[in-house]
């Protein structure tokens, strides 16, 4: 394989002195679609945030395109699109859905440069594709949680970044929207050969382009391999540590 796009070495991440990621090492490559699975609190979100440089890295390092990430290094982040798990937005904020999606172009455009016609067309296309074009003039606080989630996915997509991090992007979407998002993401990989990291709990709806699965447990990688090896009941039962109700039915499709 060629040189890694994201390198993580002995990463230890803490929140207020509480260690969450405990010495994790791995690499992510060009044109690789990784799905991260793991129980609540296993550190999935924290791992994504560490790649963005948003967590307190106690030791070890994260490099993206060979450069160490850091809170102040914003230029690297233009090349990483991120859909966060939750966005607690003040419903009174003065910003419309369209403007909030346009923000995805803000970093790419550069400091102080206005959006171009091209940016707006791109936004319109994606809004239409996700079925929220009719909401473009609505304030961001006035739409439903799922619609806001679509806007946040749209924002990440218009960024056209080589790296896409998605933290349970389909968690609050209806089945139709879930399929649409999955097909967009699958397409993206085909077209742009992105490095994609996708966190999910939806075992039945894993993206078909997925070529690697990482199972996180208690702040470290527990299993790492291709879907054929890892997607079996026994492993999943052990991963989530529950009674068998959790995984049996959901895996039927695979």
């Amino acid at each position: 394989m060629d040189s890694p796009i994201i390198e993580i070495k002995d990463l230890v991440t803490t929140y207020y002195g509480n260690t969450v990621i405990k010495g994790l090492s791995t690499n992510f490559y060009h044109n690789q679609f990784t799905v991260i699975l793991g129980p609540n609190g296993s550190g999935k979100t924290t791992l994504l945030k560490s790649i963005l440089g948003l967590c307190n890295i106690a030791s070890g390092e994260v490099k993206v395109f060979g450069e160490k990430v850091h809170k102040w290094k914003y230029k690297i982040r233009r090349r990483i699109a991120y859909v966060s798990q939750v966005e607690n937005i003040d419903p009174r904020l003065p910003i419309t859905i369209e403007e909030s999606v346009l923000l995805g172009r803000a970093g790419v455009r550069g400091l102080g440069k206005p959006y171009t016609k091209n940016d707006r067309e791109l936004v319109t296309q994606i809004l239409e594709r996700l079925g929220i074009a009719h909401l473009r003039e609505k304030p961001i606080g006035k739409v439903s949680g799922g619609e806001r989630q679509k806007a946040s996915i749209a924002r990440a997509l218009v960024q056209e970044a080589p790296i896409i991090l998605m933290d349970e992007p389909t968690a609050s979407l209806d089945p139709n929207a879930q399929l649409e998002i999955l097909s967009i993401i699958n397409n993206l990989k085909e077209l742009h050969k992105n490095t994609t990291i996708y966190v999910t709990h939806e075992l039945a709806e894993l993206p078909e382009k997925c070529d690697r699965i990482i199972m996180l447990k208690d702040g470290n990688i527990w299993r790492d391999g291709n879907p054929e090896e890892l997607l079996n009941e026994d492993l999943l039962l052990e991963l989530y540590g529950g009674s068998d109700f959790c995984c049996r039915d959901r895996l039927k499709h695979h």
Partner: protein
Amino acid sequence: MFSFLEIPGYLIKPLTAGFLTGISCSLVGVFIVTTHLSFLGICIAHSAFTGALLGIWLNFNPTLGALIFSLIASAIVGPLADRGELSPDTSTGIVFSTMLGLAFLIIGLIPGSKSSAMNLFWGNILTVSYTDILLLAIVTIFLIGIFTFLYKEIQAVLCHRNIAIAVGIPSALIFYLMLIATGVSIAVSLQTVGGLLIYSLLLNPSASAYQLTYKFKTMILLSISFGVMSCWGGIWVSYKFNLPTGACIILTSSIIFILCSIFSPKKDKKFKDQNND
């Protein structure tokens, strides 16, 4: 009401100062109110006040003192607010009360007449000098420049810190730039409008605008208009009825705020949202 011919000559300078202060304070107010950092704004304003007092006591330019102290306060409280996870209120409160203590200490230490110190509480927009107006003009133009040039970046930071960070905007840089802008515009307005008046000019116009619109551009324009309206309305009322100017400006801005809250389209909406979440 206000036909230009009726304005007595000595009101021209105060009206100009009111115009500039109205614009600059309500512009930084937009930042403070949408990021819910009102208390931080008040803390910075108070530190500026303490710095100006120090200038009076030690015989250097009070505006310079105000500038230095408001920047110090931003440097202390900014990183705490920038974390975005913990509410910065406690630490802001500590800085605020320390500055308050310092202010009273310095007032006690100033020898002789304390009238110049007391003037800082209320400012004196009627005796504003050309130098003050020049400074105000420079800062106002600088702020309008920032808001025009960095419009989308500021909007991103206001919208959500994590969004700004994720799309690759120098969020921390913008945040500190806005804090510095807040400090600077407070410092240059202090002598004119006073340490107490400045709170209301920072918060009321933008809070009023926040009640009325969901459009960022409209909010900025409304906020500026409310700021200027408060200053001009206050000066006019105080001139007509021979009342203290500072108090009239504060009350005008409060009346605008009350009216906006009454007619706010966001009122019942907020209640619904609380049920949803």
